[in-house]
């Protein structure tokens, strides 16, 4: 049931994207050079393809049981071996069965924290922003002690700064607060 619902949702998203792409085709068509020449063509083809694939997935979603061997493009002989393993109680390709792990709040917290970091770094600049984000990431990922997280983060922030900013001369965000601080100091 899960797979059917996921496939249907994906089909709806594909259909939605296809409609957007067709809308771009409609918007760009007046600028065309010829029927097949111009910026409108690819959005049109892609939109039609996405919409058709989306409708297909909505109407014919995958079966709840996963056809792992067919997915892997296996030879019939290999399939037979896999079936043997299955009948012996071993789960063929269990290592690649992606849907076995459960959704973890910690996993979702990572992108949330990284997004927060991208907003924080605008204000604080690279050193302070990265230090704070690093401490939180180390804590989130299992470093139990706060001082150790701070130390790890400090080392990582310094190492990245040395490599990117000092050695490779890549400009890292200075931050609005540090600019303000410099103004005040002046």
């Amino acid at each position, binding site marked *: 049931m899960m*797979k059917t619902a996921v496939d249907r949702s*994906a089909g709806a998203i594909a259909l939605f*994207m296809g409609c957007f792409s067709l809308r771009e085709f409609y918007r*760009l068509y007046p*600028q065309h*050079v010829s029927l*097949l*020449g111009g*910026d*409108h*063509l*690819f*959005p049109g083809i*892609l939109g039609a*393809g*996405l919409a058709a*694939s989306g409708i*297909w*997935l909505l109407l014919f979603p995958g079966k709840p049981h996963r*056809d792992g*061997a*067919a*997915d*892997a*493009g*296996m*030879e*019939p002989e*290999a*399939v037979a071996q896999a*079936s043997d393993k*299955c009948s012996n109680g071993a789960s063929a390709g269990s*290592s*690649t069965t*992606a*849907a076995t*792990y*459960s959704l973890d709040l*910690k*996993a979702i917290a*990572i*992108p949330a924290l*990284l*997004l927060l970091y*991208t907003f924080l*770094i605008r204000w604080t600049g690279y050193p302070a922003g*990265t230090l704070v*984000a690093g401490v939180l*990431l*180390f804590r989130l*990922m*299992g*470093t139990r002690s706060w001082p150790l997280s701070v130390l*790890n983060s400090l080392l*990582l922030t310094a190492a*990245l700064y040395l490599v*990117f900013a000092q050695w*490779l001369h*890549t400009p890292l*965000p200075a931050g609005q607060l540090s600019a303000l601080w410099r103004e005040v100091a002046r």
Partner: protein
Amino acid sequence: MSSLSMLLDGFSHALAPMNLLMAALGVLVGTFVGVLPGLGPTSSIAILLPVTAVLEPTQAIIMLAGIYYGAMYGGSTTAILLGIPGEASSVPTCIDGYPLAQQGRGGPALGIAAIASFAAGVLGVFGLVLFAPVLASQALRFGPPEMFSVLLLTLVITMGMAGGRFVKSAIMGLTGIVLSLIGLGANSGLYRFTFGWEALEGGFDMVSILIGLFSIAEVMRGISEKKEAISTGNIGSVYPGREDLLRSAPAAAAGGVIGFFMGLLPGCSAAVTSFMSYDAVKRMSRRRHLFGKGAIEGVAAPEAANNATSSAGFIPLFALGIPSSPPLAVLLAGLMIYGLTPGPMLFEQKGSFVWTVIASMFIGNAMLLVLNLPLVGLWARLTRVPFRILGPVILLLSIVGAYTVRNNLFDVQVAVAFGIAGYFLHKHDWPVMPLVLCFILGPMLEQSFQQSMSISGGSLSIFMQRGLSLAFILAAALLLLFSLYMVRRTKKRMREERGEALSIVNTEA
């Protein structure tokens, strides 16, 4: 003087102690910079170009070639050990390299990557020596219709790589092309798919997408699976065994040949050839069911193709002055800074210099092997570092890497968004490879199609009238039919096997 004697003359110059030192330094620096996500060969050469300004022209170019090869190899190290392909050409290496690292075989995988890179690099340089003038003139016959057809063939290959999931692959591939079209349209000068949002006007950067789909998603998966380390088992031997070498040799040879010949074509980047060679070797292999789960051949083929393409790219660059990939375009700038103008007269006017550079490529490839093989054990130990330490390091390194490409925080946010998408796509078993490859090929596909339409006055028959183009289209059609047949046959066999198993169970019951 024949090519061979000129090459020997080149060797006598390249083996000078200072030149050797420059090659070694270039390879080391290139490998180190290539390991950093976001910094591929293009940015490595561009960043380090001013560093070479203090050197003599020959030494500078030798060092730049070393950086180029080193950066190509460095990208595969993180792809294999951490599942982070720093650039698109390392994505196929990641497919089998990372599962091997998870099984505690990161060392052999890295060793095979180094050996396959070396072998294919040498093969490519031999091709450069022997066939440069002939192949360069043939490459000119490869126009936009041929380019479009070859890209079409690559797209069909992508569908094949995803196994039986054709509709899902199609959706992912089409989405990849749509994402690649975001930004300014080449014909109308109007923005496409930006919906008035200014941040989208520059389009998405490929590195951000790769970092999101692979690094961030991988760390999210690691957390949700409560992973202790990438590999918790015994690392075992860090060098590839005899069996690994025997299995990898044909794959590396196939990858090298595909990489070399496809690499001659302008626009056919290492990303395209590494995907092509991976698929070709997978199709030819008897162990194809192991591909994607840790087949050593799956590392050898794309790595060989990657390096052979790099070497082959020097042929149109030296003989015609056409850079076939972005890193070579930067290298071309380097050549011109040192007063070397590539083109048909280059071999006659600056023969000694050119042959010294070609000889230094042999040396650079050998250095790559000599310097990197002893480091394999050290790199392989990275997979044993506790995930609670490695995870934040991967994340912050990736984030800074994504930022440094265009010095833009929007790219970092894009990487995070693709990280979330990658996590859910993997969770629900949707293939991400078609999205990645189609994102890379999308602009090339559209450009070659539009150029073909301009040449033909809007007639599709141009693709059928030109021999090479027709051959590629027929190959694509045959490959598609073959893939469909194989999937159908496999599914039928599966049903039969399941039916038999069920009937046995029922009888026993």
